[in-house]
């Protein structure tokens, strides 16, 4: 909880997030039209999605399963009876004139998300509910100066609205929440978490209060579409509310929009009138009753989730909390790391973690490649680590070899042989080089007697004499022995 210092004293941010996560499914929540992204306008619309008279919604079983799996991943209560209701409002991209959603009886109740903070600590954030609802169509405002174009392909695609409790106290915590939720959804395979394509959208509820005091009036900032914008929107809105409160004004409860270009929030005009949604149970849909056996079956089929994987990485591999958190954030990254550690000879888990995070992920970022397209896979990187582990090459050489591997896609041993990089670890050969450097530099030997740090100079000379191929650890040891 970070406090904001104002002129009249300190304030505390209270943040709750509503995340709309598009469910991964082949077809829509209530119709058999495809959910594929990027198709030609209105080509994935059934008469149900277009709200033609007389059409009836039929619920998609897989979407229900995805909501249950997500609820179980959030350690939440699964409600065996839930009810679909109509949320009524008018907008051009909502042909029904209402959204089928869940209100009083959502499919998932109270749960918990454990967020990972940058300092390595964790915090439990309460989940209030998760419910299933239809997405709206898409309005394009920039195609024509006088008109809005409407594409209903997204109309009726299943969304999970995941509502947190107002238990976050800073932009940093909110960012960590979205990151963790996205990671969890990807592990579960229930949402692809792609914020650019709008598969994950975030509404920010924020208010300020005196530390420990009663809650202040909140505002809701809608449709923030990246983690960075979530954090910026929170900073901007907190600043705005602070100015109002400090000057004795009152915050108006309203819906706002974040403008990333200006870095500020502004009121959303169209929603002012629309707050009366007149929810009522959808007469076209009976209550959704779940068989407990089905919920159990779905629970048994869940993959290992990020928190469990992190705990296992800490226990089995002795990694730092930071390294474990980075590695488990994405399932594919964790799988890469485990393939690396478990492949080939016995590999040092910490060394493997360092190489994976610093060198390998660094190269991925710099080159824009992905795990699938990268020229070096876990097997090849493992080959490099093995050469490092058996002293064939030094750490410095390993970096050079890794760069060459990334360029050429060749394996480590081939490159080491091609470049003649093999580290010299032969005691006889190195001993001769060490003897020569000592014999040639009696003055330095004298200095060493007074100051043992001078050994570094000798190591440098031996490395030079061997064109950098000498095993530095061995040279050090030989020098210490011979210099006495």
């Amino acid at each position, binding site marked *: 909880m970070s406090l904001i210092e104002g002129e009249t004293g300190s304030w505390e941010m209270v943040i709750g997030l509503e995340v709309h996560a598009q469910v991964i*499914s*082949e*077809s829509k929540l209530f*119709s*058999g*039209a*495809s959910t594929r992204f990027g198709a*030609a*306008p*209105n*080509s*994935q*619309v*059934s*008469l*149900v999605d*277009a709200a033609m008279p007389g059409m009836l919604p*039929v*619920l*998609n*079983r*897989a*979407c*229900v399963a995805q909501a249950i799996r997500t609820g179980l991943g959030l350690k939440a209560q699964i409600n065996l009876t839930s009810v679909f209701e109509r949320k*009524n409002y*008018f*907008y*051009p991209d909502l042909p029904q004139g209402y959204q089928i959603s869940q209100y009083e009886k959502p499919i998932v109740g109270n749960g918990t998300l454990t967020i990972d903070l940058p300092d390595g600590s964790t915090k439990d954030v309460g989940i209030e509910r998760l419910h299933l609802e239809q997405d709206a169509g898409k*309005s*394009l*405002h920039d*195609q*024509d*100066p*006088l*008109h*809005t*174009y*409407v*594409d*209903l392909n997204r109309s009726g695609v299943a969304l999970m609205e995941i509502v947190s409790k107002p238990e976050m106290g800073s932009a940093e915590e909110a960012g960590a929440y979205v990151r963790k939720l996205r990671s969890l959804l990807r592990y579960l395979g229930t949402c692809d978490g792609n914020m650019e394509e709008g598969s994950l959208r975030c509404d920010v509820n924020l208010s300020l209060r005196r530390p420990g005091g009663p809650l202040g009036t909140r505002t809701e900032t809608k449709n923030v579409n990246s983690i960075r914008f979530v954090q910026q929107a929170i900073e901007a809105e907190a600043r705005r509310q602070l100015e109002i409160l400090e000057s004795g004004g009152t915050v108006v409860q309203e819906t706002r*929009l974040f403008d990333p270009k200006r870095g500020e929030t502004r009121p*959303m*005009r*169209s929603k002012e*009138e629309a707050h*009366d949604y*007149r929810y009522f*149970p959808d007469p076209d*849909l*009976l*209550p*959704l*009753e779940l068989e407990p056996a089905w919920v159990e079956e779905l629970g048994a089929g869940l993959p290992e989730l990020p928190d469990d994987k992190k705990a296992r990485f800490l226990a089995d591999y002795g990694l730092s909390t930071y390294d474990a958190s980075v590695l488990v954030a994405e399932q594919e990254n964790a799988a890469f790391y485990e393939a690396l550690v478990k492949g080939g000879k016995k590999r040092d888990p910490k060394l493997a973690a360092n190489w994976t995070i610093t060198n390998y992920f660094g190269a991925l970022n710099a080159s824009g490649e992905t795990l699938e397209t990268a020229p070096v896979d876990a097997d090849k990187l493992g080959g490099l680590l093995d050469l490092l582990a058996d002293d064939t090459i030094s750490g410095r050489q390993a970096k050079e070899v890794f760069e060459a591997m990334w360029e050429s896609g060749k394996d480590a041993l081939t490159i080491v042989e091609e470049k003649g990089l093999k580290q010299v670890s032969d005691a006889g050969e190195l001993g001769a080089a060490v003897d020569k450097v000592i014999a040639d530099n009696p003055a330095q030997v004298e200095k060493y007697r007074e100051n043992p740090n001078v050994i570094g100079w000798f190591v440098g000379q031996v490395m030079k004499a061997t064109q950098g191929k000498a095993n530095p650890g061995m040279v050090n040891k030989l020098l210490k022995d011979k210099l006495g």
Partner: protein
Amino acid sequence: MSVDIDTVRRIAKLARIRVEDAQAESLVGELNNILAWVEQLGELDTEGVAPMTSVVEQKLHLRADAVTDGGYPEDIVANAPQSAHGFFVVPKVVE
């Protein structure tokens, strides 16, 4: 439960139905008659009785997740007052 003229105007506005003032006056009476009639249900004691959601004993039908529909954008926009390039075209709504 009963409605006054402001509520009638508000409901009309929310439903996007134009109601002239003269009509609104008579609608107050009509709607209140309907509400009073429905309110007779309140005379029954329904304490402890679960709401009935269907007159026949049946469960919500779930369908398999398969693409079985769509692919006819011309039909979808066929009745639109205006369309272009497969889109519905409506008066500008700016946010």
